[in-house]
């Protein structure tokens, strides 16, 4: 019997309501005191196409998928065929056998099969095909021991705005699912049980919502964006909340407009942001250079998906790191930070605006579909940890002629007036300019101005989010990674530790300016180094080599099929290579 540790996959066709039910399952797990992580694996279309929603629950936070699926709820054969190989031996499948039969060669005999005519029960018994999901929820709840009261409370909560009739039929659907299980499967337990813990004062939130929330708390009052998966949620979040706090959002005509609007609003003195994904990021590149040379603070959220071009818009990847760091003609100071959890997404988003204001440069928040569109449980957010520092912003009158917008300073940061301030009138030109903003091609000035701007990268270092060390800091095996991979890497570490293999993991939260000293020190005396990332070319690993030089004991652990790592995919290469080096034995 596996208690309080389960990964459910809810699979069917897009548009059939499985996402809503996935959210419901996650909510019930949370209510039962478990830590939850969800992962949406859906096609880039509105109706049809295989979609699934992974909901993982355990006694401790995981921030990622498990090695296997424990329970698959399949509304069609396609869902079974697509995922049967991912099932844990001893797991179970709930299959809607209304109109399809599972062929024998697909029907693994090491999983338990619960065939339920869900579609027929919905259509014939309850008269509403839509409640298939809720029937399945009832059956699932009965099989794994979800708190029936919590199920009813959450279902009522979700459907109450649709009226009493809708709530009523959904409650009856739960009962139908539960009853079917007790009538037919009383003798075939699922092997899984949930014991209610205590649902402390916790939240369940999606990464993108945390970014929106953190930005608003961090003082963002202007957002312009162009809808793009998987970043649109941030614009939607801000569109809902920003006006209540004196802010405004604009759905721009394209990403070129969005980024230029962000620059315009920030030039005027309002903390401003946009959120986009790879294709939009590419379009924004020119204007980001403008923000760099004009020393205008902007925050750009990059919700990474697979590329190139359209790629797989709803799938995850970490292939935009190079783009954020190296794209753009000319050279500008910029900062790239990346959260590893939903909670960190909130705090880093708030911090991004201080970094932008203090160093007057573009700040990128790099996140990935596997984190930004995933929900997770987290402690309540502590707003007292957020403070607002507008850096050298000047709102009091200055003396015209004495004031220089681009004054040369030791830290590279010049006092920044905003329009409306008496005496501060100047030209902010994308062309090279002198300290007063007058366009000039003077060679001495050019060199000095480049140095002034780039100096901000060094000035910013002490302020940047620090990397986190997970695991045993003295372990000989070192792992590096960032973003959504924090979850699977930490879990892999725990499992390796339980086998006697100690590891340490440096979770990079600032990727640019690259934390050279920390990384060099971290890998210096490691026997082997693993860089875990979701791309083909090993972008982070190359960055590290760029800093430390060629390193024979450094290995890439890569995945680029559009899905996030499962822990086993990190454990196996480490075990394999460590065994080759005879390390595993030595450390046991």
């Amino acid at each position, binding site marked *: 019997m596996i208690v309080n540790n389960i990964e459910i996959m809810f699979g069917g066709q897009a548009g059939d309501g499985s996402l809503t039910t996935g959210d419901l399952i996650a909510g019930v797990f949370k209510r039962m005191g478990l830590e939850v992580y969800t992962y949406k694996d859906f096609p880039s279309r509105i109706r049809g196409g295989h979609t699934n929603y992974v909901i993982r629950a355990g006694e401790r936070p995981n921030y990622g998928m498990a090695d296997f699926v424990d329970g698959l709820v399949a509304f069609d054969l396609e869902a079974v065929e697509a995922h049967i190989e991912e099932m844990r031996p001893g797991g179970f499948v709930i299959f809607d056998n209304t109109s399809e039969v599972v062929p024998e060669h697909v029907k693994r005999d090491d999983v338990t099969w619960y065939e339920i005519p869900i579609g027929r029960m919905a259509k014939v018994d309850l008269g509403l095909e839509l409640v298939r999901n809720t029937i399945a929820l009832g059956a699932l709840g009965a099989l794994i021991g979800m708190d029936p009261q919590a199920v009813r409370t959450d279902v009522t909560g979700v459907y109450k705005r649709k009226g009493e009739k809708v709530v009523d039929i959904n409650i009856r659907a739960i009962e139908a699912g539960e009853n079917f299980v007790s009538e037919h499967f009383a003798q075939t337990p699922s092997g899984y049980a949930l014991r209610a813990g205590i649902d402390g004062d*916790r*939240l*369940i*939130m999606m990464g993108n*919502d945390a970014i929106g*929330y953190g930005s*608003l*708390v*961090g*003082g963002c*009052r*202007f957002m*312009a964006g162009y809808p793009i998966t998987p970043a649109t949620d941030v614009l939607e979040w801000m569109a809902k909340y920003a*006006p*209540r*706090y*004196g*802010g*405004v959002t*604009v759905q*721009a*005509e*394209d990403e*070129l*407009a969005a980024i*230029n*609007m*962000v*620059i*315009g*609003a920030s*030039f*005027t*003195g*309002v903390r*401003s942001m946009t959120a986009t994904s790879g294709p939009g990021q590419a379009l924004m590149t020119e*204007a980001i250079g*403008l923000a760099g040379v*004009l020393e205008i603070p902007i925050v750009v959220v990059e919700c990474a998906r697979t590329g190139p071009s359209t790629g797989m818009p709803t799938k995850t990847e970490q292939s935009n790191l190079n783009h954020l760091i190296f794209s753009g003609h000319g050279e500008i100071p910029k900062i790239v930070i990346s959260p590893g959890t939903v909670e960190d997404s909130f705090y880093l988003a*708030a911090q991004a605006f201080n970094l932008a204001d203090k160093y007057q440069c573009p700040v990128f928040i790099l996140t990935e579909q596997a984190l930004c569109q995933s929900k997770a449980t987290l402690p*309540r*957010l502590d*707003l*007292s940890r957020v403070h*607002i520092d507008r850096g050298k912003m000047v709102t009091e009158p200055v003396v015209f002629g004495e004031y220089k917008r681009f004054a040369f300073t030791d830290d590279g940061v010049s006092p920044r007036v905003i*329009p*409306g*301030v*008496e*005496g*501060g*009138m*100047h*030209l*902010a*030109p*994308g*062309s090279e300019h002198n300290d007063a903003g*007058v*366009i000039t091609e003077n060679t001495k000035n050019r060199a000095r101005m480049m140095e002034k701007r780039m100096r901000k990268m060094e000035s910013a270092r002490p302020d940047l989010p620090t990397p986190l060390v997970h695991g045993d800091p003295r372990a000989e095996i070192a792992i590096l990674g960032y973003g959504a991979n924090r979850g699977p890497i930490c879990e892999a570490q725990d499992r390796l530790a339980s086998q006697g293999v100690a590891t340490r993991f440096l979770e990079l939260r600032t990727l640019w300016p690259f934390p050279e000293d920390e990384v060099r020190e971290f890998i210096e005396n490691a026997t082997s180094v693993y860089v875990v990332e979701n791309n083909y070319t090993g972008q982070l690993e190359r960055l590290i080599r760029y800093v430390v030089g060629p390193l024979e004991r450094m290995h890439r652990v890569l995945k680029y099929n559009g899905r996030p790592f499962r822990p086993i995919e990190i454990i196996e290469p480490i075990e394999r290579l460590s065994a080759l080096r005879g390390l595993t034995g030595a450390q046991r």
Partner: protein
Amino acid sequence: MATMLTPKDFATATPSWWCAGCGDYGVLSALKQALAELGKVPKDVAFVSGIGCSGKISGYLHSYAFHGVHGRALPVATAVKLANRDLTVIAAGGDGDGYAIGAGHFLHAVRRNPNMTYIIMDNQTYGLTKGQSSPTSQAGYVTGTSPQGNPDAPINGLAVALAAGGTFLARGFSAQPKLLVDLLKQAILHEGFSLVEVMSPCVTYNKINTYAWFKENTYYVTEKETYDSTNRMHAFEVLNDDGKLPLGVIFQEARPTLEALAHLPELPITQVTLDPHSSDLNAIQDAYV
């Protein structure tokens, strides 16, 4: 302000990079005159320009001036207005900036109707890159990139803006300062997006659309006795006439501005107090319990 400012108060010390005789001088001087006559002060004027000869104008107007990337003056200016609605916001650029690389933003600025003024300085050529054809060049115009004659029909920017829902459309000529000052003043006072297309001859590269050509080929709409600038049909008619170019206020109508429809706070957003510890903000997370 105790004393009215003069056009000189809107001048910068920066020497101009324009050629002697360039039409853009007339635009700059009319703009300074208009701002002074309207009692504007430099600190409250935000002036955004694009790229090209015309884009250099932002360096010559004493104000909060912004010289961005090619074609994107309007998104920048729209956001400046949203961020601080108390500012007088003016954008300026050439025919290439507004009708070619920035054409998308042009349409959307027109339809959004922010309370700002957009001056298109139309010389019907790409001057700064030494005389290629532009979106307003006449068909057949021979240049380095169109040695056999420009194959593209010119864009009729004002007609496009009229179709897109423009609320103030005017055309001036840089050699007629009195008219231009008057048009710019009306445009700045207009509540909404005001577009002033100024014929601004390029003396170096455009040997066809010269000062003399414009004198010959323009007329004031007010010369038409029955012309009604609030009548959309009248506007379409004069803008689509193949004959001479109409000058003056072609069309104007009242329509709610972007600021009015975007649920902006009473004060400029720049003045909104940021308090990360407010109980209101903290309560947002209650929705996620």
